């Protein structure tokens, strides 16, 4: 292992620890106490909230197909890149060679998701509403993650950028603990609370209109 591997490993540990701390804090704060008489099912509400609700007649999706689609692809790209990062680290010991076809599929896929990330960045920059809603962190987060995917492509193409790759990932991981990228934790918490709320009141899962 080289020095930059150690740095990346350290960053990963810090990032995981901080995110885990956020998670633990949520758990410790706990569920809202509700003294009202429940009329639905929280479990079913949460199950719906975390699955079907994401596509079920959701205006943020169907009124904005291109953006929504780009966002989805972008997120998949991010998770694939993160997964690859962990794989690369482990692979230092395993010394497994990725089959060529898989490599090219990954490169092609990540190219598309990188493009999506970039398009979303440009949209945030150019559309007035978006600009007025955004802060520096929004732009930075978007850029860093897009770059991260780009770097992953670079590293897949040529091992020569290895040092740059690891250093960049370290920056990303550390940055993740500061701003909006924490939504990797809070997204799931929000889905949970929404399911709790609507499930308790029997709004979710939605009934067919009779």
């Amino acid at each position, binding site marked *: 292992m080289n020095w930059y591997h150690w740095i990346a490993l350290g960053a990963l540990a810090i990032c995981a620890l901080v995110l885990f701390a956020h998670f633990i*804090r*949520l*758990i410790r*704060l*706990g*569920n*809202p*106490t*509700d*003294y*009202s*008489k429940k*009329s*639905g099912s929280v479990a079913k509400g949460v199950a719906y*909230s975390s699955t079907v*609700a994401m596509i079920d*007649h*959701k*205006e*943020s*999706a169907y*009124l*904005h197909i291109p*953006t*929504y689609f780009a*966002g989805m692809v972008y997120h998949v790209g991010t998770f694939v890149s993160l997964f690859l990062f962990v794989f690369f680290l482990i692979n230092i010991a395993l010394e497994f060679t990725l089959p060529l076809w898989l490599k090219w599929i990954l490169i092609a896929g990540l190219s598309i998701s990188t493009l999506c990330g970039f398009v979303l960045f440009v949209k945030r920059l150019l*559309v*007035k*509403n*978006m600009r*007025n*809603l*955004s*802060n*520096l*962190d*929004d732009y*930075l987060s978007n850029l860093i993650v897009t770059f991260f995917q780009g770097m992953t492509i670079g590293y897949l193409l040529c091992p020569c950028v290895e040092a740059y790759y690891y250093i960049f990932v370290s920056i990303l991981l550390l940055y993740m603990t*500061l*701003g*909006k990228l*924490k*939504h990797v934790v*809070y*997204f799931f*918490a*929000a*889905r*949970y*609370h*929404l399911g709790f*709320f*609507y499930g308790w*009141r*029997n*709004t979710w899962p*939605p*009934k067919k*209109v*009779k």
Partner: protein
Amino acid sequence: MEKLSQEQIDKALKILKMPADSKLVTHLNACVHCGLCADSCMYYKSMKEDKFIPARKVELVASLYRRYCTLTGKIAPKLVNARDLDEKMAEEMVDILFGACTLCGRCVKHCSIGVDIAYVVRIGRQMLAAMGLVPATLQATVDAALTTGNNMAIPTEEFVDTIKWMEEELIDEMQDENARIPLDEKDKNILYTLNPREPKFFPLSISAMAKVFYAAKESWTLSSTMYDVTNYGLFNCNDEEAGIIARHLHDEVKILNAKMLVLGECGHGSRANRWEGPNYLGMKYDFDMITVAELINDYIRSGRIKLDKTIIKERVTMHDPCHLVRNGGLLNELRFAVKSAVNDFVEMNPHGNDNFCCGGGGGQLAMSEYNDRRIKIGEIKAEQIRKTGATIVVTPCHNCVDQLMQLNHHYKLNVKIKSIGEIIADALVIEK
């Protein structure tokens, strides 16, 4: 606006700094500024100003949270748009959180993350309430309820006179001395409740429900003092005041020893009693609360009342009150009642959990200063109604009724607005 005192600021920030559970922290950290909620909100849809985008409402509160409760916000406020709580901020919050949100929750369902935007707006209002910055018009309605027990400050004798008057009319119509509107009677099945605007200005919905109770041979009563189902404390978000108001009805059930509290046709009032009341008071209620629609459905299903669908010949549509349907789970309960009474029923588009607010929710009806916005956003509802071709709009909420009456006039819809009680009473077959 006057300069905020440190005491005011501390009181407001306490709400952010001492969360009771993980809900607040979650929703204040979750918005990713994707902006996709914009088109779900009638304020943005009808006025296209970006300050009305739901995420901007969340951002007002979240930026304070970041400033005072997160490390990044304390060290590098510019990076994450962490803002100070000062006069300018407070003014913006009043204008947007009180003046540009009906707490309808429509955006919540459509948010790509699942941020409970309406909940965050209510937290923002709580902060403003803690600083004493509730708009005077809204506060006046809360104060009336606090000091007199009803939000229109109706004196008890005048209320009693009105009920007696309605009772005489009912006796006349039913030609039966036993067709009564009982007041303050103990040990009944049901304590029924009203929106004060019924006795004050629109008492026909009281006699309509009395007719339904008469037909169902229900054992029921009204209280001569604590009959107000509304709770504007839900809107000024002063939970302490909301609790005092919620306690009125809770205690009245106990005093009269009624078995059940029936919530009159009022969306926010139903929510404030049924869902929030026990939480305001921090205890479970040992009696049941149901809404008028649920009660009427029981009567229909059990055959206690009979309806004739052919009496009402006109086309009918229904407006879903946000707090009964999206925030109260009564989607099909409301429909069952209305569809049992009429033949020609059409839905608005969209409807149910996805409905648009009438535009008068969230305390907007009380806040004159935002009247223009209220009428403007109501255009969406007006056009929805127009497209159904219906001539009767039913809605089980007197707050919605008032807004719809104004929309009817302003946008020249030529429809009649009715409560569920009224439409049921119209279709009622009285068996002698």
